[in-house]
């Protein structure tokens, strides 16, 4: 299949009405939920394509002889302030603020222009009229309002909007910058872990996020499996963390690949701001911000892969960066896996479920059947053995509606939207 269609990020807006996806080809596609049909009270509105635009194009950095990929790494929505919607989208080097606005009227009745735009001969104008707005078919336009460029030497992996809604951070492998949404020619560097001597490099920044409520607090995760919480009030450069979250490694699990699988691929605060969740290759961990020495909960996503790490290293799957997300009430967390499986963990009941995003299940109102992977031994009926998993079918990006039980799950080229049964 065409690789430019590969979905690279998925994000609901603050109301959940809009769902944005970015892809490897630099495009953003926004879906909008239909208004609820009052007569069909048993289902929520469907999501349909609302707007599509090209956010980033491939670029070439001539100084460094580097091609800059147009792939959209992250999209983050701004809260809605007026009729228009705003989102930030970023590739490896450049962040853009896009305004998405609707146009459902157009002016008609110009004096000097025909309706098709051709100019009239002024000498033929004998009367004057006032142009008026007339309804038209809805048009959704996306226009770039700000371009934040040239602030990152390394590849951007995260953007996060501050709760003050005026600033945001962008993080690359070694640095985190703070921006004001209105100002594009300046950014402040707030974290710099680049060593004086690059030979001494032992870890990189893998993700960063602002605290949902506390506008001076943010966290960043590292390839070594640590998370640092920083307070911007403490100093201008937040190289010294306020808190360091780290779980000691289990020595009995040590392997050639220990460093790789402990690298954190995503970090997300809970909506409450009391917890944060991290994803590494095999597990999801929930941390209480008040306890630094170990997570309060750990969920195994696909522990059966631990014995396959060598093959997963050979085929590069071990470098896959899975994301994770919270539901609106912070009671369930979700993350993806292989074979188009995704997993949900209920923090209260401690139950977990494995579901599959595939075409067979995608008939409307089909209830998803739980899946099970058979790690070893005799495979029961309906179970899948580890060796028959398709590692090309991976779900890296998932999103949960901020208020409802609606989830968006991205397979390689397809977006699936599921909602729970309503009765």
């Amino acid at each position, binding site marked *: 299949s065409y690789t430019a269609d590969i979905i690279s990020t998925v994000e609901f807006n603050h109301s959940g009405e809009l769902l944005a996806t970015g892809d490897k080809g630099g495009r953003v596609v926004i879906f909008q939920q239909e208004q609820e049909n009052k007569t069909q009270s048993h289902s929520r509105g469907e999501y349909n394509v609302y707007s599509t635009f090209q956010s980033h194009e491939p670029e070439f950095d001539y100084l460094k*002889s580097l091609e800059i990929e147009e792939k959209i790494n992250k999209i983050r929505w701004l809260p809605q302030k007026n009729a228009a919607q705003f989102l930030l989208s970023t590739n490896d080097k450049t962040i853009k603020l896009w305004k998405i606005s609707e146009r459902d009227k157009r002016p008609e009745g110009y004096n000097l222009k025909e309706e098709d735009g051709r100019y009239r001969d002024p000498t033929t104008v004998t009367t004057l009229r006032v142009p008026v707005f007339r309804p038209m078919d809805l048009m959704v336009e996306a226009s770039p309002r700000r371009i934040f460029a040239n602030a990152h030497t390394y590849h951007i992996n995260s953007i996060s909007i501050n709760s003050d809604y005026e600033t945001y951070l962008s993080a690359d492998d070694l640095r985190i910058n703070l921006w004001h949404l209105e100002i594009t020619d300046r950014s402040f560097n707030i974290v710099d872990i680049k060593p004086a001597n690059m030979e001494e490099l032992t870890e990189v920044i893998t993700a960063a996020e602002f605290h949902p409520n506390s506008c001076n607090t943010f966290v960043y995760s590292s390839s070594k499996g640590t998370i640092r919480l920083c307070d911007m009030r403490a100093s201008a450069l937040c190289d010294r963390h306020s808190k360091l979250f780290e779980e000691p490694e289990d020595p009995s699990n040590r392997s*050639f690949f220990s460093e790789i699988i402990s690298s954190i691929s995503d970090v997300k605060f809970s909506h409450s701001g009391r917890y944060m969740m991290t994803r590494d290759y095999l597990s999801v961990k929930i941390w209480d911000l008040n306890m630094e020495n170990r997570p309060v909960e750990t969920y195994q996503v696909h522990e059966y892969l631990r014995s396959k790490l060598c093959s997963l290293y*050979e085929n590069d799957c071990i470098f896959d960066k899975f994301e994770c997300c919270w539901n609106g009430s912070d009671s369930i967390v979700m993350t993806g896996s292989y074979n188009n499986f995704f997993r949900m963990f209920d923090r209260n009941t401690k139950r977990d479920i494995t579901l599959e995003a595939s075409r067979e299940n995608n008939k409307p109102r089909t209830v998803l059947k739980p899946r099970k992977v058979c790690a070893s031994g005799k495979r029961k009926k309906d179970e899948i053995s580890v060796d028959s998993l398709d590692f090309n079918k991976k779900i890296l990006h998932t999103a949960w509606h901020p208020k409802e039980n609606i989830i968006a799950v991205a397979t390689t080229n397809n977006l699936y939207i599921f909602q729970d049964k309503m009765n």
Partner: protein
Amino acid sequence: MLRGRRRMECTLDAQSLISISLRKIHSSRTQRGGIKLHKNLLVSYVLRNARQLYLSERYAELYRRQQHYPDGAPLLAMPACPPPAAAAPQELAGLPLPADTQDREVRSCGAMRGGTELLEGSVCSASPELQRAPCRDSSPGFYRVAGSAGPGGGGGGGGGGGGSSSSSAAPGLLYAAGCDFGSGGAPHCSSRTTVLDLDTHVVTTVENGYLHQDCCSQCPCCCQPAPGLLSPPPTPGTKRKYYPGQEEEEEGVEEGEPGGGGVAGGPPFAPCTKRARFEEYSAEHPQDSSNISNLISIFGSGFTGLVSRQQADSEQPLNGQLCSKQALASLGAWTRAIVAF
């Protein structure tokens, strides 16, 4: 027996992991979007882990041979980077993790100073470790300098972990030795490298980049097939160099008899072959010190060399193993290459 085989398998895995990792680093250079620092850093950790295990295996092998043949083991070229004398750990768990605070008097990436980095970012976590390995203990490790006579020349196993021995030591005695570039070897061993700091866009030219291996064929104090005695050991703390050619010799020994029976008479040191290898390798690296040599281009040609060697060696029975060994043989170059990121 089974134990031996498991050890072998363990070592083989380490070798193939090293090959795979190097191939990943190589192919990442041509991927769209530039070199991914994160991925290459992780690959360098695998490289380091595999190399640590491989070296510890070799060290254990050497120790076993010494136990077997107290009068002198057959020629066994030892990589110049034994693990700490404390252990020859069988599991990785025993291997120390890289410590950021260890002293780093040996830097193969001497070119890298003051925040400069090469064109496409750096992946350097491997390099400190890969080079720290030899220096982890402050006393120099040992290696058998090529050129000793056959097994009869073995001068006792006393060289383990060794301190320096006097220059009159019997041939084959393991002793601390190294390439003393300080004394007059410098001119042809130095070269300039050009580095570009990605952040400031300042281009700096650094002298005495670590291209010693390329120079070894010309350096009189090492790699000489002098029968009998060799250059006096340097003072402790001198850099110890890793000679690809010696690795090759070791292959000849081990492939024959993994059980350590030794090869009667040993493969006579074949300076021509080794020199040829060196020259084949160094020929790819312009020695003309008046030219500013770009590490990136060296890196590229170094990899070309590896790839072509792999193809050329298809007649070897243990193809995979040999390729990995070749990879290991030129591992010093690879550490430099990795740093070149």
